[in-house]
């Protein structure tokens, strides 16, 4: 904490840390100083000059004592010129006048200048009503304009499908350009020309080739940049604004939804709140239109004979409860499995497992459905140093060294990527990306290191990194049992040096050693992994190897953890905390009896051992790794219950379908990848016929005779706070505004040696994962995202494509052990030769076969077929 200094602003004295900007100190003193160009995530610029103030210091006499005025107050030596508050840092004893004649004249002058070339077209501007220029003109402007000469004008233009530019309104604050550069690392926007002709645009006015995040629109203080998807849809005062948590990824950004009637018209950031503040990625900002989709389910469906028929809620609940009771009675409670739930909120997750464990007595609950090889909940908790104070996004931004293991953050944790980009641009952060593809953060522009691991050799590389870390000696602050375990581990890693590293992983031993050294030596560090690990064919061994590595790098210590894991969904972390896992109970405790994991349950169902499946919000047919197994399970199961928004392929196979509320239609709390528990709010009523999942669970539980009496999700939360360790003392009230970081008892390490198995066989290595525009099953339900994605394509390195005789737009048939699928081709030089990348988004990669060992290999050939998957 830096030293506190006293400043007096318009007569109000406040104490702020040394180095605070006058504008921020003014906020603390509750004196309003307007700003346009300055932004909390960007370095001071001082360009717009709207924040001009008078600044002075006490006059000192020859003995450096303050000179006192007649009234006993110190005399102030005011600086001859006004100063910009956004670039001036406070000094002890400083005086600031924001409303003196001099300051006011200067500010009015700036205001008038800003309007010299501004079109004053507020009535047709989307920013109208929430425009900072409009507000200030109202507060400071003259009552008439002294400027009646011709204004210089620009043409308006669409910079691609998202951003509309109306340059005449631009005040050249450069926020958009700087944000695009310093936070997004995109450099899509630039100022061109100069002087009064300065215009914000892209290279040669081409459509923006970028993440389409729309943050430029967000930070624009005027209506120069507006969002095409929202254009002319509403006036801001027509919208109800609700702050809730985005459901697109595990970062847990706060999002302000603008709702009119039953429709979400837009999403914005939250300025001074949340882990993200103004930041949102393209999905968070433009992807929520799936909630408005016309094809949402509006009534429960119950199978009668071959067809699913709409039914009343009562009928569906009664039917489901009766069938569950029968099956449990006949085949035992463990013949029922509860699958999925990472998209549920914590209260719903809690009730889902409670329904399973306490009402029906089944041990088979597991949220993680996409895994080819199930990882236990406890293993993930251990690998992330669960229970310890963990890494936050702020900590990530402040880290000196970041190691990203096998994850494309752009597609799966965009806020984390933005924190790294900004840390790199502003704080000298260095990033090492271990990934088969040259993902965004591995581009030369971020001056990091790319460990271009051979597809399938992820485990091998992790072992090599661990060995290199242990070669540096024991990390500091490790408990004795960990250091002895690490010592024992060292032996098992003896062979991971030199040529073996190069041959097995494709990365030189020197690069591996350097990466390990950087991580070990960095004070503030971060180790990140995600679905690339959790859904890896060797996930159990890989997660164990990462736990070993994290300790060896000092990323987990007795005291704290610098490891962050990104699950596939916005409440994946909640599922772990709340025991929606076959081997852990709410609050991390081991389950007394280990149940079946989701994957095991499906296999058991295919064998007829499990007879009923309750699946929540997961289109298993498209996304479970073994499609054939899922099909077989569905054939065999006596009862399949599905909670869904849409009639997915999986829902279409169910016996009972409960239409459920979307995230914005219900209240609850969710846990992000920082393990931050945040309140998620209801922004609009559920779609007709849809109910919150917890309400469905309660109805069925009651029909099964349970004495559940939750009126609201808050009731459920009270029970969680009462009964689950780690949630003690929390209430909805304590979650505002920034949520609560969950801690608990540090989970003990369990360091064990694991063996690497290479990706055997012939053909192209199949790579997959989420991408920004195409991710999971929802992105295709968002009109905006679907348009941006333009279908799911197979991406090939230029060399690979030409070897196969393919050009962009051709079709390629990929064939795996289970069969073929045809995709449109995209040429992508970030994909290594010898591999093919297909986004995990409605692509039904599970038609090809089940990844095993290091993954899956497929053969590829040019296809004449016009039909493709996921187009």
């Amino acid at each position, binding site marked *: 904490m830096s030293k506190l200094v006293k400043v007096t602003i318009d007569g109000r004295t406040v104490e702020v840390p040394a180095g605070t900007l006058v504008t921020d100190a003014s906020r603390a003193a509750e004196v309003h100083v307007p700003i346009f160009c300055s932004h909390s995530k960007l370095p001071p610029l001082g360009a717009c000059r709207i924040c001009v103030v008078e600044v002075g210091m006490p006059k000192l006499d020859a003995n450096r004592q303050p000179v006192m005025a007649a009234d006993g107050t110190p005399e102030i030596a005011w600086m001859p010129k006004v100063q910009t508050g956004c670039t001036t840092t406070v000094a002890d004893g400083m005086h600031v006048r924001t409303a003196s004649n001099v300051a006011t004249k200067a500010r009015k002058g700036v205001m008038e200048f800003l309007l010299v070339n501004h079109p004053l077209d507020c009535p047709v501007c989307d920013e109208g009503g929430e425009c900072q220029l409009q507000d200030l003109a109202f507060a400071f402007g003259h009552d008439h304009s002294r400027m009646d000469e011709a204004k*210089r004008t*620009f043409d308006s233009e669409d910079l691609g499908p998202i951003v509309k530019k109306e340059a005449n309104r631009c005040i050249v604050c450069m926020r958009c350009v700087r944000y695009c550069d310093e936070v997004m690392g995109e*450099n*899509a*926007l*630039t*100022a*061109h*020309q*100069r*002087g*009064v*002709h300065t*215009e914000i645009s*892209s*290279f*040669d*006015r081409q459509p923006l080739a970028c993440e389409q995040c729309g943050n430029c629109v967000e930070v624009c203080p005027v209506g120069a940049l507006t969002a095409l998807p929202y254009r002319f849809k509403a006036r801001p005062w027509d919208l109800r604004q609700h702050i809730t948590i985005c459901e697109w990824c595990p970062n847990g950004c706060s999002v302000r939804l603008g709702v009119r009637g039953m429709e979400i018209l837009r999403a914005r950031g939250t300025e001074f709140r949340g882990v993200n503040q103004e930041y949102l990625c393209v999905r968070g900002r433009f992807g929520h239109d799936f909630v408005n989709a016309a094809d949402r389910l509006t009534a429960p469906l119950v199978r009668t004979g071959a067809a699913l028929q709409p039914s009343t809620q009562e009928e569906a609940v009664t039917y489901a409860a009766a069938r569950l009771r029968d099956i449990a009675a006949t085949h035992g409670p463990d013949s029922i499995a509860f699958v999925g739930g990472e998209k549920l909120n914590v209260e719903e997750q809690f009730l889902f497992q409670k329904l399973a464990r306490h009402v029906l007595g089944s041990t088979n609950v597991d949220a993680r459905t996409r895994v080819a090889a199930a990882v236990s909940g406890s293993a993930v908790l251990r690998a992330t140093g669960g229970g310890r104070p963990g890494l936050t996004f702020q900590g990530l931004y402040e880290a000196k060294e970041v190691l990203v293991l096998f994850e494309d953050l752009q597609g799966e944790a965009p806020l984390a990527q933005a924190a790294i980009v900004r840390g790199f641009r502003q704080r000298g952060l260095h990033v090492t990306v271990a990934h088969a593809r040259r993902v965004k953060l591995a581009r*030369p*522009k971020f001056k990091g290191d790319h460990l271009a691991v051979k597809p399938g050799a992820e485990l091998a590389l992790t072992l090599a990194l661990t060995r290199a870390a242990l070669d540096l000696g024991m990390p500091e602050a490790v408990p004795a049992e960990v250091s002895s375990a690490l010592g024992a581990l060292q032996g098992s890693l003896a062979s991971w040096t030199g040529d073996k590293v190069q041959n097995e992983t494709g990365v030189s031993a020197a690069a591996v050693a350097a990466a390990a050294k950087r991580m070990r030596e960095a004070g503030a560090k971060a180790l990140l992994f995600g679905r690339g690990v959790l859904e890896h064919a060797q996930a159990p061994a890989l997660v164990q190897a990462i736990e070993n590595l994290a300790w060896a790098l000092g990323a987990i210590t007795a005291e704290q953890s610098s490891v962050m894991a990104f699950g596939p969904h916005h409440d994946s972390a909640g599922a772990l905390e709340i025991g929606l896992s076959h081997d852990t109970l709410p609050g991390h405790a081991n389950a007394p009896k280990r149940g079946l994991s989701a994957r095991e349950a499906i296999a058991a169902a295919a064998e007829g051992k499990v007879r009923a499946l309750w699946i929540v919000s997961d289109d298993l047919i498209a996304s479970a790794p073994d499609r054939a197994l899922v099909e077989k399970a569905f054939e065999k199961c006596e009862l399949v219950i599905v909670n869904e928004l849409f009639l997915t392929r999986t829902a279409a196979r169910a016996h009972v379908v409960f239409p459920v509320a979307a995230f914005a239609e219900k209240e609850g709390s969710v846990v992000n990848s920082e393990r931050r528990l945040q309140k998620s709010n209801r922004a609009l009523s559920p779609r007709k016929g849809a109910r919150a999942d917890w309400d469905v669970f309660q109805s069925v539980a009651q029909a099964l005779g349970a004495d559940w009496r939750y009126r609201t999700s808050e009731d459920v939360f009270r029970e969680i706070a009462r009964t689950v360790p780690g949630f003690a003392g929390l209430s909805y009230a304590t979650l505002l505004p920034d949520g609560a970081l969950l801690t608990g008892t540090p989970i003990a390490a369990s360091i064990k040696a694991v063996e690497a198995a290479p990706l055997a066989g012939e053909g192209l290595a199949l790579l997959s994962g989420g991408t920004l525009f195409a991710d999971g099953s929802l992105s295709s339900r968002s009109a905006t995202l679907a348009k941006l994605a333009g279908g799911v394509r197979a991406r090939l390195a230029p060399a690979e494509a030409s070897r196969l005789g393919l050009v962009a737009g051709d079709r390629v048939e990929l064939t795996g052990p289970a069969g073929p699928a045809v995709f449109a081709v995209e040429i992508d030089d970030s994909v290594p030769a010898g591999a093919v990348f297909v986004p995990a988004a409605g692509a039904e990669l599970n038609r090809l076969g089940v990844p095993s060992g290091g993954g899956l290999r497929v053969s590829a050939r040019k296809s004449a077929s016009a039909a493709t998957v996921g187009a």
Partner: protein
Amino acid sequence: MSHGTVMPVDGPATLEWSEKAKAEVADALSRYPVKRSAVLPVLWIAQREWGWLSPAAMRLVAGSVGLPESEVFGVATFYTMFNLVPVGRHHLQLCMTLSCSLMGADRLYKHLQKKLGVSHGETTKDGRYTLRKVECLAACGKGPCMQVGFDYHENLDEAKVDALLEKLK
């Protein structure tokens, strides 16, 4: 005489450096500890190669100095001496700032306008001359003055301009 917004027109789809230019680019890069510093010298090399900076040329420059294309675009359009549209064989840049104006620059501009049939920023149909009004060239003591390409022509009057145009043909 406002600078105005000049946008590049379409040019060739892609361009490649000649061998000579490649060596010049390498030399320019070697002069700075930071690559991006070479963006002006390399833009100059491109302008010398092709006479003007087409989008393709700017893309090539971006690759050579390791900058995003957008930044090169922002830089190239900031300065007035980079031609964002093709110019004639002789680029007549007549100084119009005070000292030259006091000595008759405005009269000369009208003379050139009439003689060539083009105005500020325009190129004669035969592609021979582009006429441009520019700001102070640091030749104030010898005004009116004009740069043709990089060559200074000073103490001009109508007769000298006529003779010069005759010579340049």
